[in-house]
């Protein structure tokens, strides 16, 4: 058996670790082990590749690995549970960019820097040349799209929410990408080819920005998942360009799994992928500021604590506002205080509450909220009518009863937490500003609903204090 054959066999072991790892990552009990298997598969792949190369110039390899590892560890250490979606989006962008740069490096090495003239097709072969261009396109668009997604999650880049003539811009960019991609692989002049590839990269990046820019924050989970799928496809395209089976397999598995996850999320939000991509939630109805609300009842922590004292069942509905205010520990404490008083207390988890699917699970897990207090939407919805008090913390669209209407609103048909059926509802919220769908929430006008305006963490702390005082 030759060395090359051994390398291929070892790559197969890597892929096996990937497959088993992903499978285990998808089950609660084995998730952490699954992640370790994935990491082990990756480490194996890296080691094999280093061994296979044998004696090469290692300076840049060492520099790349060390710098990358340090930045990676540093980024994770600095991240908080609230900013996880942003961190994942950023890493995803880096993955896409890496694939694009691998393809660019290959193009420069084999075409631009090579002696004499010849087209990319002549030098790399048709399949490799085409996939180099494809990798630059997908990688470039994934990178800029992920950066845009991260910026939107931080609440920046609002200027891109409305892009005039977006569809025209998209078609024009797509046409330019197609033209540049074709040109780059058929021209023989190295200098010209290099220029065209740079144009290709820039135009692809513009497409990523234009595609993600107007997507609403509520759709961001779907968008990040789709971008994740794309970064896998970029890796697969790079694999074709380099003739590397491991890259093709690993990249394709991520691409397909990411697409599956995207679909699961679309189903949870009752949105089609096309709908999400088409940009935001259509035209925003005008006049959805605070003045659009009539007879909203405002309350405070003291009054809410009095109501809670008499309650026997309480459901807490967390949303992005809880994560943004870092109020998860206060929410967990409130639940503990209530439970100590003999109250049945649970957290209602909407699958797309927050900025990522399962975001609320991550945030509440950080505050050590026990599993059995977290209840999924389908199971808790039956219980709302028999619930004494619901406390909505920084969630909006996922509780909006107008989603039950068949049509006429941007969120029509989206499954919601039916908190409006509870006996009493308290909504902790900074203001009456609309959620990401940009529409009014009629829940706030209900007679049994009271608003507690303020920072989620502060209000929850006040509630804990009031309740503890009442107990003592």
């Amino acid at each position, binding site marked *: 058996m030759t060395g090359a054959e051994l390398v291929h066999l070892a790559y197969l072991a890597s892929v096996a670790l990937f497959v088993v790892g*992903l499978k285990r*990552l*998808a089950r*609660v009990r084995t*998730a952490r082990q699954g*992640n*370790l298997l994935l*990491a082990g598969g*990756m480490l194996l792949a*890296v080691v094999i590749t*280093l061994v296979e*190369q044998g004696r090469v110039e*290692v300076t*840049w390899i060492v520099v*790349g690995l060390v710098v*990358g*590892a340090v*930045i990676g*560890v540093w980024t*994770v250490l600095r*991240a908080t*549970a609230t900013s996880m979606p942003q961190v*994942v989006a950023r*890493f995803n962008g880096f*993955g896409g960019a*890496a*694939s*694009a*740069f*691998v393809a*660019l*490096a290959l193009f*420069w*090495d084999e075409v*631009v*820097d090579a002696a004499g003239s010849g087209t990319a097709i002549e030098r790399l072969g048709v399949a490799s040349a085409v996939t180099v261009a494809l990798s630059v396109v997908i990688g470039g668009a994934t990178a800029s799209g992920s950066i845009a997604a991260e910026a939107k999650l931080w609440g920046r880049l609002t200027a891109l929410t409305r892009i005039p003539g977006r569809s025209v811009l998209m078609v024009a960019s797509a046409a330019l990408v197609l033209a540049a991609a074709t040109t780059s692989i058929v021209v023989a002049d190295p200098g010209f080819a290099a220029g065209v590839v740079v144009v290709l990269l820039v135009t692809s990046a513009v497409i990523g920005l234009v595609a993600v820019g107007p997507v609403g924050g509520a759709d961001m989970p779907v968008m*990040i*998942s789709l971008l994740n799928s794309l*970064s896998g496809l*970029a890796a697969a395209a790079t694999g074709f360009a*380099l003739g590397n*089976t491991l*890259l093709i397999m*690993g*990249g394709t*598995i*991520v691409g*397909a799994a*990411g697409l*599956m*996850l995207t679909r*699961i999320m679309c189903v949870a939000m009752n949105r089609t992928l096309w709908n999400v991509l088409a940009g935001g939630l259509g035209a925003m109805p005008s006049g959805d500021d605070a003045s659009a609300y009539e007879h909203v009842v405002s309350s405070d922590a003291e009054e809410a604590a009095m109501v809670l004292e008499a309650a026997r069942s309480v459901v807490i509905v967390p949303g992005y506002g809880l994560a943004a205010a870092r109020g998860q520990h206060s929410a967990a404490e409130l639940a503990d205080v209530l439970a100590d008083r003999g109250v049945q207390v649970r957290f209602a988890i909407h*699958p797309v509450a927050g900025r*990522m*699917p*399962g975001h609320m699970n991550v945030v509440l*897990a950080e505050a*050590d909220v026990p*599993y059995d207090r977290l209840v*999924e939407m389908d199971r808790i919805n039956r219980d709302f009518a028999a619930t004494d008090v619901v406390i909505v913390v920084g969630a909006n669209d996922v509780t909006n009863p107008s989603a039950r209407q068949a049509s006429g609103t941007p969120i029509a048909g989206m499954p919601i937490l039916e908190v409006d059926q509870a006996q009493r509802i308290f909504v902790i919220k900074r203001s009456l500003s609309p959620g990401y769908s940009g529409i009014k929430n009629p829940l706030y006008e209900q007679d049994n609903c009271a608003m507690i305006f303020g920072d989620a963490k502060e209000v929850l702390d006040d509630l804990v204090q009031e309740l503890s005082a009442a107990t003592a």
Partner: protein
Amino acid sequence: MNGTLLLSIYVLVLASFLGYELLTKVPPMLHTPLMSGANAMSGVTIVGALGLAGVTSGAVATVMATLALILATINVVGGFLVTDRMLSQFSTAKDRR
């Protein structure tokens, strides 16, 4: 079309079926870690970057290959670490119960 390319296409098609079937039933609480872990896995392009970083001759190509290696390493190391961090929080929540 040569044999290697044909085989690569086989791999592509089968791997996409595999990926699609891998994640059919996933509890929502694992969506974020799963996305994060899969994202780290897409850093597999690190293998491509490694293969080029040691052999490129021109300055531009070397810079690009090194840049690709740095970005891919961040993706891989950071991605798996952040996934493990999320999952470790789940397990402490479970242990406390």
